């Protein structure tokens, strides 16, 4: 789990590159950086930007890739996860993309990374000052499920008119006895803008509050960028009598024994057998390396992950 050296062409001459450094042309990068600065200046506000067609499909991380492309430099160390794991196919594909077009070192180690691109998770290990977290966002508008029209939702944000959102949470409580949102749970940024944290599980919501890292959110297809600057208040919506709560499990991670991480359920057979393992693959591997062991330590799943990680190096 150490930093992989930048491959092939460190400081490759421009004429040797098939594309511009980090793929996007400099004008586009500048346009995206302006949008990022605006997003940081107005925490939680969705900044429209001239999203480009990328060589991966919309919905597969085009927003996150454009953000990373606009901020990455040869000195950066890049980590890319999907569902918390470094070895999911789309994360592998995006990591390989930046290793190729940005000659950048890659890592699986959360603390070593300067840029962490993610789909659906915030790593378990707390982020530090100087790190940038880039989220891939399918639907930037937290109110879209309640109001399909962009013209309407923009007006609702402008007037901070979020009554509809609270009514929806109230309806949850009357139907289910609790707030039903489990992932993409709406948050209020600095008590001004309602924001979708991208579909991270609500388990990760408290990690955003007063986080020392920069949190950038990019939605390529919907052409929006938004941000949570370091040390910003992030409040998950709730009611006094129905306070916000995160997920918890009766089980611990079967491989590393962690009882404080987000768990994925792994189906073992068709007879109802299953095990729970950390969704954050690096967190889990790191704990195992340090000697922690869960009830199914040594299970084949652990070996396969190591094998894949070894091959990628």
């Amino acid at each position, binding site marked *: 789990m150490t930093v992989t050296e930048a491959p092939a062409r460190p400081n490759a001459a421009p004429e040797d590159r098939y*594309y*511009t450094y980090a*793929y996007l*042309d400099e004008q586009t990068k500048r346009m995206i950086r302006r949008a990022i600065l605006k997003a940081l200046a107005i925490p939680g506000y969705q900044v*429209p*930007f*001239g*999203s*480009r*067609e*990328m060589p991966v*499909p*919309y*919905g*597969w991380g085009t927003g996150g890739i454009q953000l990373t492309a606009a901020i990455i430099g040869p000195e950066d160390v890049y980590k890319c996860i*999907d*569902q*918390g*794991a470094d*070895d*999911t*196919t*789309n994360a*592998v*594909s995006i990591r*390989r993309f930046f290793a190729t077009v940005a000659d950048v070192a890659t890592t699986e180690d959360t603390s070593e990374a300067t840029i962490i691109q993610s789909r*659906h*998770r915030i790593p378990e290990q707390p982020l530090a000052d100087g790190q940038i977290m880039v989220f891939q966002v*399918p639907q930037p508008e937290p109110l879209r499920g309640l109001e*399909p*029209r*962009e*013209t309407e939702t923009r007006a609702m944000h402008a007037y901070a008119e979020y009554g509809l959102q609270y009514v929806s949470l109230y309806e949850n409580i009357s139907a289910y*006895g609790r707030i039903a949102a*489990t*992932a*993409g749970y709406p948050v209020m940024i600095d008590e001004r803008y309602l924001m979708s944290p991208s*579909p*991270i*599980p609500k*388990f990760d919501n408290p990690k955003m509050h007063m986080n020392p890292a920069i949190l950038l959110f990019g939605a390529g*297809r919907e*052409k*929006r960028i938004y941000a949570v600057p370091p040390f910003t208040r992030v409040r998950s919506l709730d009611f006094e009598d129905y306070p916000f709560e995160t*997920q918890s499990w009766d089980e611990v991670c079967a491989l590393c024994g962690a009882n404080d991480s*987000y*768990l*994925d*359920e*792994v*189906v*073992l057979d068709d007879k109802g057998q299953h095990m729970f393992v950390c*969704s954050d693959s690096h967190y889990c591997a790191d704990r195992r390396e340090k000697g922690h062991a869960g009830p199914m330590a040594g299970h*084949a*799943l652990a070996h*396969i*992950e190591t094998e*894949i990680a070894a*091959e*990628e190096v």
Partner: protein
Amino acid sequence: MAYVAVKGGERAITNAHTWLGEVRRGDTSVPELSVAQIREQMSLAVDRVMAEGSCYDPDLAALAIKQARGDLPEAIFLLRAYRTTLPRFGATTPIETANMAVQRRVSAAFKDIPGGQVLGPTFDYTHRLLDFKLAAEGGHEVPPAQVSEEIMPTQLATIAQVFAHEGLLEGDPVTDTSEQPYDLTREPMAFPADRDQRLQALARGDEGFLLSLAYSSQRGWGSTHPLCGEIRMGEVSVGFTPDELGFEIELADLPMTECIMLSGFAGSAEQAPQYTRGYGLTFGHNERKAMSMSIVDRALRGRELGEEGQAPCQDEEFVLYHSDVVEASGFVQHLKLPHYVDFQADLQFLRRLRREFFDAKAKALAEQTAHMKEAAE
């Protein structure tokens, strides 16, 4: 173990793509298609890829079709992803379709439209019988079409010019050429959308989506009572004025299809009733797309013409946000990506609800049993 297949490494991706290459090639005892063959013999597919790919380059479009194994939305995506990397050195002067070197031109409004009806190379009036002569490989002679002795006029009057003296049809909207047209490839969609933004979105829009919308309009879901004023297809010259020259030079002649759809009699206290129109324009030869586009364009002019419409084809947010095949295809297919973090969150919630449901049932049953026991005693 099935689960592991979902977590794939670099090797799995590479192998999958190698296999894709093999499947793309197909049976190697059959000769490989060349890009030139696709360009020449699948020209309507090439035209569609160029139109929705927003990039006029028949060779690149043919290459994209070959690479995409004939999947046109995939080919459109390939061409778009290439196009977006190209530097821009300026905008052409607006093309003048009135000066088109017409190969085909039909009007459903006038039998004797000045300049006449020109059928051109069309599927119309062919009998859709499979032609097994085409299945025979090689040696199939294509008889040349007879060349008319009558010379085509260099300019065919447009439907607007035909109507001009009577004012029966609204005039050409004045284009402010000093202003840069809206460019969706550089700016995000914004509402309310002006004509330039709308027409660009429709020109890039998915043919199938626009066709269905136009059809729904015809069937009464926001009808515009369309009448095909004119369709013309042929080559249009494209001019460009480089800053360093200061005068216009001709860059290319591009085949294009244009459709003007007549519709409704808009009139008000101030304005005499007259025909309004919808406009469609595509690269290459694609009448289905140009006609659909013109019907949808007209339907979307409701706000401007003071019509109150609720049908899908009249709703610009609905139409313009959902017409792009690259966006739609990407987002629908992103559901293939793992969602097990969200799924786990959902599953946990669902299990809790079910537990509560069954607990409540069990409790109710126990109470009922106790009650019955009491009654029996």
